[in-house]
C-alpha cells in the first residue's frame, strides 16, 4: 500500500469502479443477486456525488428501462405495487406479478425511485397511490415496517425506507406517521441513540434510519433537548479515527455516512474531526481498482464506496469540494433533490 501521507481521493478511479458495477459483477456478488437495484443505486448516486454522471450518459436510458422492468404493477385491490430487487424472480416479461413469489421489496422501491430521480426521470410512470396502498400493508401495529408482503423481519431499516418513499412520491398516505414516530422514540436506548427496535442496543445504522425518518416525517421536534444532547454525544464518541458503528467495534467506512448524516441533520456536523475521517477512508481506498472498503484489509465494494463518498460530502468545513453534497435524509445529491422538488411543483400546477 502506498504511503498514507500522500493519499488523495482518487475521484476518477472511484468513478471507474462504480461504472464497472453497472456492466459486470464478480461472482462474489452472487448473494446480492436479488438486490441488484441497490447496487445500481450505489453506482449511479456515487457517480453523481463524484460529478461523473456523464460517464454513463449513453447508458442512462437503458438503466431507467431496466429499473422500470422491475416495477411490479397490480390491480387496485391488490397490494403488490412496487419494485423488486432484480430479474431473479421475474419469470416473464409481464408488468404484473410473474409468479406467486414475485413481490416488491421496500428497500428496492426506495433505491429504485432514488436512482430514477438522479437520472433525471420524472416519475410519471409511477402510481403513487398504489405505492402508498402497498406500504400501508407493510406497517405493523407497533409502527415498524416489514420489507415485503411476503413476510420477513421488521425493523428501523424498513421504517426509514417507508419514510424516504413518502418524500419521493410526495404523499404520506402510506404511513401511519404517529405510530411510526412512536416506534422510533421507543427504540431509544440508555446510551442515547437508536437500536433497530425497542430493547436493542444503539447502532450507527439504525440511528441514522431513526433520525432521518423523524426528519422526513416532521418528528425531530419530538426529541426533547436533553435527548438530543445525549444523542449527539453518542454519535461524536463513535469517532476513533474513522467512525465505528457501536462502542468497542472496529472502524468502518460506511459509518461515515450513517453517523455523519445523522450529525448533519441534528446540526452538529462540525463537532467531529473530518480530516481524520478522511484519513481513515483513504486507507481503505484501492488505488488500482478504485473503490472504498470497510477497512484497509478488505476488498472494496459498492456499498462502502458510495457511503464513504456521500458521507465525506457532508464534511464541515468542506474537505473535498470536488464532491457533490448529498441531502442527508434522502441520501441523494442536492442537485437530484432539486430535480425531485421540480417534479412535485410540476405535479401541483
Amino acid at each position, binding site marked *: 500500500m502506498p504511503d498514507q501521507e500522500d493519499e488523495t481521493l482518487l475521484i476518477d478511479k472511484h468513478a471507474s469502479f462504480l461504472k464497472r458495477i453497472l456492466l459486470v459483477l464478480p461472482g462474489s456478488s452472487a448473494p446480492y443477486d*436479488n438486490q441488484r437495484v441497490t447496487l445500481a443505486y450505489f453506482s449511479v448516486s456515487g457517480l453523481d456525488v463524484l460529478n461523473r454522471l456523464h460517464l454513463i450518459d449513453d447508458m442512462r436510458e437503458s438503466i431507467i428501462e431496466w429499473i422500470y422492468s422491475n416495477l411490479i404493477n397490480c390491480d387496485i385491490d391488490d397490494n403488490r405495487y412496487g419494485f423488486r430487487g432484480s430479474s431473479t424472480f421475474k419469470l416473464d416479461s409481464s408488468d404484473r406479478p410473474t409468479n406467486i*413469489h414475485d413481490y416488491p421489496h421496500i428497500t428496492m422501491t426506495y433505491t429504485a425511485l432514488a436512482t430514477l430521480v438522479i437520472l433525471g426521470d420524472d416519475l410519471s410512470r409511477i402510481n403513487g397511490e398504489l405505492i402508498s396502498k402497498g406500504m400501508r400493508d407493510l406497517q405493523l401495529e407497533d409502527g415498524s415496517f416489514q*420489507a415485503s408482503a411476503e413476510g420477513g423481519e421488521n425493523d428501523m431499516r424498513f421504517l426509514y425506507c417507508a419514510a424516504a418513499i413518502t418524500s419521493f412520491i410526495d404523499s404520506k398516505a402510506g404511513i401511519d406517521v404517529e405510530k411510526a414516530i412512536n416506534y422510533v422514540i421507543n427504540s431509544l436506548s440508555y446510551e*442515547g441513540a437508536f437500536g433497530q*427496535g425497542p430493547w436493542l442496543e444503539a447502532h450507527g445504522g439504525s440511528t441514522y434510519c431513526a433520525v432521518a425518518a423523524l426528519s422526513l416525517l*416532521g418528528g425531530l421536534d419530538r426529541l426533547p433537548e436533553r435527548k438530543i444532547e445525549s444523542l449527539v454525544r453518542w454519535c461524536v464518541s463513535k469517532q476513533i479515527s474513522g467512525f465505528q458503528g457501536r462502542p468497542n467495534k472496529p472502524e468502518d467506512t460506511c459509518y461515515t455516512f450513517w453517523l455523519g448524516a445523522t450529525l448533519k441533520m441534528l446540526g452538529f456536523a462540525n463537532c467531529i474531526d473530518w480530516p481524520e475521517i478522511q484519513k481513515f477512508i483513504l486507507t481503505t481506498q484501492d488505488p488500482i481498482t478504485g473503490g472504498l472498503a470497510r477497512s484497509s*484489509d478488505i476488498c472494496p465494494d459498492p456499498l462502502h464506496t458510495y457511503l464513504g463518498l456521500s458521507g465525506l460530502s457532508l464534511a464541515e468545513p468542506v474537505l473535498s469540494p470536488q464532491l457533490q453534497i448529498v441531502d442527508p435524509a434522502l441520501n441523494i445529491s442536492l442537485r437530484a433533490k432539486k430535480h425531485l422538488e421540480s417534479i412535485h411543483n410540476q405535479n401541483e400546477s
Partner: protein
Amino acid sequence: MHGRVKVKTTEQQEREKKIERDGKLKAYRKAMSALLSRRAEGIKDDTQLMVSAQVLQSNPDISTLWNIRKEVLLHLVDLGSNSTEEADEKVFEKDAVLLKELDLTQQCLMTNPKSYGAWHHRTWSLEQMDNPDWNRELALCQRYLKLDERNFHCWDYRKWVAHRAAASPQSELDFTMEKIEENFSNYSAWHYRSKLLPLIFPGSVQDSIQEETIHSELDLVQNAAFTDPEDSSAWFYHTWLLGRQAEKSGIIYSLLENGTLTISCTEPIESAKLNVQVNESTENLSWEGEEERFNKLWTTKVSWKEGTKVKIFLSGSEDQYLQFSVDLDRQLLLGEKWKSTNQRFTNLPSQKTKPVLEQALDNCNQLLELEPDSKWTLFTKVLILLALDSHANHQEIITSLRNLTEIDKPRKNFFADLECRLRTEHCIETADSSTLDLSELNETRIQYHKQYLPAFKLVKLSSDK
C-alpha cells in the same frame, strides 16, 4: 456487504479459485432455475427443500427462498395430518419436519451468524411447532453469544425466546449479572440490564428506576469502569444512571405586551396544546411560531381590556397554570419552569443521592490522578460535578471542558458547544428580572434556550458589540 479479505495468491491458486468460483456460480444458477421452474409448475416436495437448502447455506439472505420453503413445509405438514398411512404421518409429523428447519438455520448461522433471513426463519419454525424446546434455544443463544457477544440478532432472538419461555425479568436480570461477572466489558449485558431494571424496580416517573437501584447499579458499574477506563460502555451506563432526566414539558413564562401574547415552553409543542381562558371561557386564538407545527415560542395578537382575567395552561397540566388580570403595562408572568438559582436546569441531588455522587466523584478524581488523560473519566467527572451542584462547581466544570478539548481533540467542538450551553444556563439562572448578561460567552448571538430571550428587557451579548 461483508467483505472479502485481500489475500496474495500465486497464479496456480488463482486458477484453482476461479474454477471453484465458476463451479459455485454454475451451481447457484442451476439451483435457482430449477427451484423457480418447479415452483411454477406447482411442485412442493422434498427436492425443493433440498435444492433451496443448498443455495441458502451460502446465500441465507434471499428471503424468497425461505418463503418457498415455508410453502413446501406447510404443504407437507398438511399432507401428514390428512394422511391415513402411519408411515407418512411419521415422516410429515409437524415438529419432526420443523426440527429439520432448526438444523438448517443453525448451519446457515454457523457461517452467517448475522443473517436476518436465517434468524427470522428459525423464529417462524418455532412458532409453528407444537412443542418447541425453549431451553434448547436459550442454550443456542448462549453459544452464539460466546462467539460474539455483540451479535444483536442473537440478543433480539434471545429476548423473544425468553418471552416465549415465560422467563421472568428477574431471571433475565440474573443472566445479565452472570455475563457481567464473566466479563465487565459485556456491553450488551449492560444494555439488557438498562431495559430490565425499569420493569423490576420502577421509579415514580415512567421508564425511571428507583433511587436505591440507581445507587447499587452505580456501585456495580464503577467496578467495570475502573477495571478498564478506556472501555466506553461502562462510562455510558454510568452517565445514564447520573443523567439529566428529560423534563416534562411546561410553561416557562407568558408575556403580554402591546397587544401581543407570548407563551414560552420548555419543549416544542403544538399550538393546540395551549389553553387560554378569558373570564373563565376558552378563547380560540390563532397562534404564530417559527415552525409550522411544533414550537417552543408561540405568539398571538389579543385586544383585551384592562381588568380582563386571563388563565393560561397546557393541555394535560391544568394544575400548572398562570393567572393574571390585564393591565396596560408589560406583563411578564413566570411559570413553573422558569429557571433561577432555586430552580435550575440541573437541580441539586436528593439527600440519599448526594453521598453516592460524592463517592463517584472521589473515585473519578483518584483515577484521574493515575491517568490524567482518561477522557471518559474526565467527561463523567464533568457530569457528576453538574449533578452535585451546577453553581458551586461551575468554574471547575468549565475548566474541565477546556481540558477535554486538549486531551480529546477530535471532539473539541462538541465540548466547546457544551460549554456554551452550560454557560447560557448559568447566566439565565443567575439573571435578575430584566437583564440577561451573556457577555462572558463571547458569542454574537444566543444559541441555546432562545425561548427565554423575549422575557428579558435587555440582553447583553459579546462585550465587543
